């Protein structure tokens, strides 16, 4: 095995172009597990720890440009107001030790359907900035997930940053697991209100081969909020509306039975999480008070 240690981004791109099979490693919380268990023996590791710009972010536009390797701990504490949904999701990742190392770039690189970031990115609206010596590609996050643990990166590309729409309304994230720490999601749901556009967006995790949006549920709720005059009145949502939203969200799932849960349970739980997170974001939208309860 070879250990490549580029000192800067240009050098990293050149190394990836020269060695397309090199496996990028930043926090190591996925890659090292695979190596420790002999599930993977890459011919080369490409260490990204020394590339400073991957650990910074910019918040001056309508989007946050989040460096690919910014640890979850910093997102939780320092980007809570700009990216509330992602900050909540980041807080559910593993443990403090894991959150000190793991990053959104790693979650995207691994592209597990159970990755905690994905629903929050889908709900907020995000674009993956993939770069190679050939140039930069902006990939809408919906198009980034191509299959179970597969993504749209070309072999010579690295993730430089993730551009995430800065929140203009309440966002929530809820995850089902057996305890509050060290849990791979049984299923997860993210919800974002976009009051400026008067739309809602969602993300479902761990309940389909890839992370997905519940588009039918989004379209239904967006139309109901508009036609019912909810944005203007700020009145409480009809229970039947929330119930239908949950039903449609459950319908967007395409889960499997596995050791963490059955397909039927996942579908049911996603419906419950959808209804619950909708209640939370709508309450925050109308009262201005954020919900801090666990899902």
């Amino acid at each position: 095995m070879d250990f490549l240690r580029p000192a800067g981004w240009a050098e990293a791109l050149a190394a990836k172009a020269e060695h397309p099979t090199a496996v990028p490693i930043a926090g190591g919380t996925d890659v090292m597990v695979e190596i420790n268990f002999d599930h993977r023996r890459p011919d080369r590791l490409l260490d990204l720890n020394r590339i400073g710009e991957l650990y910074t972010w910019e918040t001056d536009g309508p989007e946050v440009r989040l460096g690919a390797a910014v640890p979850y701990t910093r997102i939780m504490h320092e980007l809570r107001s700009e990216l509330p949904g992602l900050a909540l999701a980041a807080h559910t990742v593993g443990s403090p030790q894991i959150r000190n190392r793991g990053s959104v770039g790693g979650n995207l690189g691994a592209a597990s359907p159970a990755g905690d970031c994905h629903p929050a990115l889908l709900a907020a609206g995000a674009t993956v900035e993939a770069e190679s010596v050939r140039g930069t590609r902006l990939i809408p996050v919906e198009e980034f997930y191509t299959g179970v643990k597969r993504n749209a990166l070309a072999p010579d590309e690295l993730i430089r940053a993730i551009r995430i729409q800065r929140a203009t309304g309440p966002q929530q994230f809820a995850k089902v697991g057996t305890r509050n720490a060290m849990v791979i999601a049984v299923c997860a749901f993210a919800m974002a209100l976009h009051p400026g556009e008067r739309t809602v967006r969602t993300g479902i995790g761990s309940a389909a081969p890839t992370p997905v949006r519940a588009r039918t549920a989004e379209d239904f709720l967006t139309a109901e909020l508009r036609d019912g005059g909810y944005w203007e009145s700020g009145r409480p949502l009809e229970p039947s509306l929330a119930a239908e939203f949950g039903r449609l969200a459950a319908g967007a799932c395409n889960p499997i039975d596995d050791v963490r849960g059955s397909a039927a349970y996942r579908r049911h739980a996603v419906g419950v999480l959808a209804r619950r997170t909708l209640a939370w974001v709508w309450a925050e939208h109308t009262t201005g008070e954020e919900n801090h309860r666990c899902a």
Partner: protein
Amino acid sequence: MRVNLTVNGRPQQADDVWEGESLLYVLRERLGLPGSKNACEQGECGSCTVRLDGVPVCACLVAAGQAEGREVVTVEGLGEGELSAVQRAFIDAGAVQCGFCTPGLLVAADELLEHNPQPSDADIREALSGNLCRCTGYEKILDAVRLAAARRGEAG
């Protein structure tokens, strides 16, 4: 490959390191520091918790080469010649049974108290949520951290 790093304040050099090797393996097998324990090798148990440039991490998930030029503190570095306050509190509170999880818990608890000298129970639970113990049932571990915090407050 060769890896140069600072461990518990001393410059160290490890030779013939395999590129896929973890920092934990380097500490235990090459530098003679077996305090950090090797259990799950997947970041689930926290028994290998060390500080890397001050930050608590699972040493089993850091590639050895990533520690080049970095500062590592292991459980062996907590007390200098004598037990640290957290170590003393773990003993006094009876928070050690088989002892396998103890080094990781000590490093995590020490870091918590450094940043948050008077943690709430929720703070303690969260800070230690990445460290599994299968013997004592956590209550005495929580007692130990509360005791260390209280003693620090009295001394402070």
